[in-house]
């Protein structure tokens, strides 16, 4: 099978989640991604044998390169010369301090595409702010809004914004590749994770701009529309839940039929969608009384079979056994030099002619030094040995 990004080479200076998630997608579709690491600067998230590292760095080649040495910078520039794209997610001053900023690199490689991903962007009064996914979620309004009405904010509890920034980064690079295809020119992309995240809150932002309304938390109620029931309902078993959403009168009729028309379904207060919406707290309690008598899987199946939107609130163990995910080969397994087997979520982008390839687990530190330095850059074995001894290729 062909690969969509065959022949594209990417130098990957990214770390933690957002950047590696982005370059992983590019690698899954055939780009040759060369991940630059150094034992000198490696932190915990970069530990090559951790599950976390492995997950976000499969399909990439790994080299060791010490950028705190001038010769290390020179080697990096030689790599840029033979590459299409540079991706980095350091604090804004880092690449500049190394002399690896876009203005320098484009002199070496005129049609270079370079993407810098940072919390706040490369300019502005907050450009040096330190940000992780949680920081961005808080600043964007997402954390404030993700809770139950009347409760303090809860937020998402994980780095969702890093995924969003990573996806936007892939989109930006592919967009710049289209432009290069058309004009022969490269360009620089300044991605602010805060801005990327904010584009996913567009309706709430417009509501403020146009109506001066400040959005408030909705719990599990739908945003911008009405539906009832609409939420997660406790089912039989320990911490088992099923999400149910009933949008139309037809669906409500089917819902009542599945429940066997208990008397409350005929009461005035639940007669129309608007009635049910206005009395949704009372409705929730009654729906939950019914749900608790069944397993979450039963609730989902009973409702889906009559065309009602419902789904088990799945935990990690459920996901690993999910029949739908299995049927579509969502999880994949690869051999790993030391971990023996490494398992991953695959790719949700199913392309008919150029599907994702899962060829190799994440690299060990410097695993592909020989291929990259010898075969790609043409260094002799002596040079490689000398540079290694001098602390450049470590």
């Amino acid at each position, binding site marked *: 099978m062909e690969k969509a990004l065959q022949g594209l080479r990417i130098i990957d200076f990214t770390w933690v989640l957002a950047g590696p998630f982005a370059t992983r997608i590019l690698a899954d579709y055939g780009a040759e991604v060369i991940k630059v690491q150094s034992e000198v600067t490696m932190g915990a998230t970069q530990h090559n044998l951790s599950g976390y590292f492995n997950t976000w760095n499969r399909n990439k080649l790994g080299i060791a390169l010490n950028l705190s040495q001038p010769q290390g910078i020179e080697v990096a520039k030689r790599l840029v010369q033979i590459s299409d794209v540079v991706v980095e997610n350091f604090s804004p001053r880092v690449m500049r301090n190394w002399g690896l900023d876009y203005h320098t690199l484009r002199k070496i490689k005129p049609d270079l595409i370079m993407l810098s991903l940072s919390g706040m962007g490369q300019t502005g009064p907050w450009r040096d702010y*330190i940000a992780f996914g949680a920081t961005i979620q808080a600043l964007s309004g997402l954390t404030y809004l993700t809770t139950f009405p009347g409760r303090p904010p809860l*937020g998402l509890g994980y780095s969702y914004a890093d995924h969003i920034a990573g996806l936007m980064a892939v989109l930006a690079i592919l967009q710049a590749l289209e432009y290069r*295809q058309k004009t022969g020119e490269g360009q620089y992309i300044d991605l602010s994770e805060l801005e990327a995240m904010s584009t996913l809150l567009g309706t709430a932002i417009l509501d403020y701009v146009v109506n001066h309304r400040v959005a408030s938390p909705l719990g599990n109620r739908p945003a911008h529309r009405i539906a009832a029931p609409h939420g997660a309902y406790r089912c039989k078993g320990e911490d088992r839940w099923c999400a149910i959403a009933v949008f139309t009168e037809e669906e409500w009729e089917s819902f009542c039929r599945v429940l066997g028309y208990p008397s409350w379904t005929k009461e005035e207060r639940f007669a129309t969608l608007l009635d049910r919406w206005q009395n949704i707290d009372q409705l929730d309690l009654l729906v939950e009384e019914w749900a608790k008598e069944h397993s979450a899987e039963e609730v989902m199946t009973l409702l889906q079979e009559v065309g009602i939107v419902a789904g088990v609130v799945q935990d990690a163990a459920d996901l690993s056994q999910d029949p739908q995910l299995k049927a579509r080969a969502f999880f994949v397994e690869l051999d790993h030099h030391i971990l023996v087997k490494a398992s991953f979520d695959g790719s949700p982008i*199913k392309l008919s002619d150029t599907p994702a390839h899962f060829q190799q687990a994440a690299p060990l530190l410097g695993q592909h030094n020989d291929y990259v330095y010898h075969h790609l850059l043409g260094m002799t074995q002596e040079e490689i040995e000398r540079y290694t001894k001098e602390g450049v290729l470590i």
Partner: protein
Amino acid sequence: MSLLGGSDLQGLRVLDLADEKGIFCAKLLADMGADVIKVEPPGGDPTRNIGPFVGDEPHPERGLYFWYHNTSKRGITLNLESGEGQEILRRLIGTADVIVETFPPGYLKELSLDYEALKEFNPRLIMTSITSFGQTGPYRDYKSCDLVASALGGQMYVCGDSDTPPLKPYGEQAYQVASLFGAIGTLLALYYRHFSGKGQQVDISMQECIAAAIEPVNVRYLYDQVVVRRQGSLQWNNAFRLFPCRDGYILLSLFQQWDTLIEWLDSEGLAADLKEERWRHPEFQLKEKEHVIQVLEQWTRRHTRAELMEQGQLMHFPWAAVNSIKELWDNPQLLERGFFAEVAHPEQEASFKYPGAPYKLSRSPWQVSRRAPLIGEHNQQILGEELGFSSDEIADLALRGVI
């Protein structure tokens, strides 16, 4: 249209046949410069009825959800249930590079408009199908929505508190994440088409998209058989938590730069016993985290969010105020970078600032070329000028409910 250099997707024609699952995907392509034609049923798309509305007056031309998700698109009306409507669509598909669609699997096959049929007469066509569960598998005919995708994708289970039900993230994140993956798939197929000359089908499952954007959930389970659970605002790895301030909430990191943090608390006489040597050991900190949280809370309650964030950031703590949408709008960083983009709405005799570019490209900037289309706004332009229908024919099509 003749901007020097042009935008990235200029000249690319996209037919947008999508509901909420793909509406953002087509917007992303439109704001990149593609000629996106939104195909709505006569009378307008159901997503026009989603609130909020300008001035809270429900009206199909005043929906802010619709406005935001349809910038830079043109719009036509077409009844796909009618033979004539299908015929017109087929002619449009002949001119299209990409279709973004979200119909239940099998629906387009009934109309003989499925990818297998269409590629026969337009082999360069890219068809991006964004559905609840994908085109295959035992759940392919099941229904979903933003809530249920979040549930079945493993996201809800890890959001919320131990004493609350699982919690759906605010907004319509599942729809938008699916759209993002869909847009990436579309551009991957487009890139490959430059070399192969052939289009392909992009099959996106909303459930899978969520299951691919839940950071620790799969990793922790696949490597250590640990099921991540919801634990309030405390992040899964105990790195961050929310704390109450005098004027709201602040996100603090718990254990980063421990000595600096304790010195700061101590300078205000609020470090309590955390000054003791034993607290410097990471394992002990983690074991006794509830006590650390208590001490920090006594301290944060005396401060405002701005004091803690600004001072904290100066000292390289990754802290943030928990902001409302109003505060996002007032954010000096976004304002300085010109994030918000003005979009003219002549019918409202006003312009409104929208969230702008998700990233800044130096040579081919993102832009909103026009506000969302009115119902059937470009019927004349597209059916008349491009497909060659006369004004009489167009009037007749409208009369018979085809457009």
